[in-house]
């Protein structure tokens, strides 16, 4: 179990005195590692709160560079770091908040050739990505490696969150065996998003990862959190458990290795910010 230094005891004092967390929980969190895939609207608040809480090792994966149009929601970045790789910008921010944590940057596009080797370096994976293909890739990779996947998403005024692959709960394919028609998929560049919405979801993703890392149960395994900032507020949905016929996590999986996800989904695995034309 990872030991806490005197300075860390001072830093995490407000958490150490929580009976349900305590020294044991803090050391457990220090001994855990989380990979955040996507250092954008969801990934930024997630990284911030994981670093603040004292996660032992944080992986930040993103192949993109900071752009001005990111800053309304991607709050780890800043004006000075426009043009910098998001993974590195994120690392600078979290190290400034908490120099005790170890940060590894992965400035790559995640795909079937590198995913298993990267994911296997971490205990918990956070899906903070922005496209369908990568979501299926992450799901399959996590199932194959036996790692929990804290999945969040946001668009317009809405957010969704659930934990896949945890203790009898479903995986992404259990819910969505087939990918959506490309014409039905909207990303934040096309549909827009109010910045604070991924702020809320990303913070909750950090909470879920911390619950798991500290030995507690996540809130949203086999539950789907729906958030509607326009009027509906928060709702929690009871989900199906792991499905015996699931192609990757079921009794007789047909998927035993990563596939070509762009082909599977009929869409690209990136979300390059497009020029936005305002009428």
């Amino acid at each position, binding site marked *: 179990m990872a030991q806490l230094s005197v300075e860390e005891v001072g830093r995490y004092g407000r958490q150490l005195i929580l009976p349900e967390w305590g020294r044991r929980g803090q050391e457990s969190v220090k001994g855990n590692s989380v990979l955040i895939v*996507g250092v*954008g*609207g*969801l*990934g930024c608040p997630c990284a911030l709160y994981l670093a603040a809480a004292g996660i032992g090792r944080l992986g930040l994966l993103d192949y993109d560079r900071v752009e001005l149009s990111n800053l309304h929601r991607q709050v780890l970045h800043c004006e000075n770091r426009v043009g910098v790789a998001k993974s590195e910008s994120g690392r600078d921010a979290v190290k400034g908040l908490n120099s005790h944590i170890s940060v590894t940057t992965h400035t790559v596009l995640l795909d079937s050739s590198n995913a298993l080797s990267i994911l296997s370096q971490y205990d918990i994976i956070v899906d*903070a*990505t*922005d*496209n*369908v293909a990568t*979501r299926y890739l992450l799901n399959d990779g996590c199932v194959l490696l036996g790692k929990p996947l804290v999945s*969040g*998403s*946001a*668009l*317009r005024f*809405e*957010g*969704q969150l659930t934990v896949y692959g945890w203790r009898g709960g479903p995986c992404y394919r259990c*819910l*969505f*065996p*087939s*990918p*959506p*028609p490309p*014409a*039905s*998929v*909207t*990303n*934040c560049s096309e*549909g827009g*998003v109010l910045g604070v919405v*991924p702020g809320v979801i990303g913070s909750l993703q950090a909470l879920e990862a911390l619950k798991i890392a500290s030995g507690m149960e996540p809130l949203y395994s086999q539950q*789907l959190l*729906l958030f*509607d900032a326009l009027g*509906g507020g928060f*709702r*929690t*949905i*009871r*989900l*199906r458990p792991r*499905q015996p016929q699931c192609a990757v996590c079921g009794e007789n999986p047909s998927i035993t290795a990563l596939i070509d996800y762009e082909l599977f989904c009929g869409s690209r695995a990136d*979300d390059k910010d497009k020029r936005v034309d305002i009428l």
Partner: protein
Amino acid sequence: MSELRIHLEFSGGAELLVGKTKHHDIALPHQPHPWSLRQLIAWIRDNLLKERAELFVTGESVRPGILVLVNSTDWELLGQLDYTLQPNDHVIFISTLHGG
């Protein structure tokens, strides 16, 4: 012989297919057999959809990526297409989000 009143909700972008309206109070006409979710989906396709049907249905079910919930529960736990609608049920069709 009365109609079956239920509340429909469309979310996650699915509302764009039904006139950008999220909430619909509807009264399904009386019929000899109980209304199933299978029949409700067909009814929505024929009566509510303003946009391309293939963005809502595939065959007799919803298209991949749409999750159906009844009273805050995944329809998979309730019999999926065979679930029998009850008066005042709250049925949500939510498109799963992929953005971040």
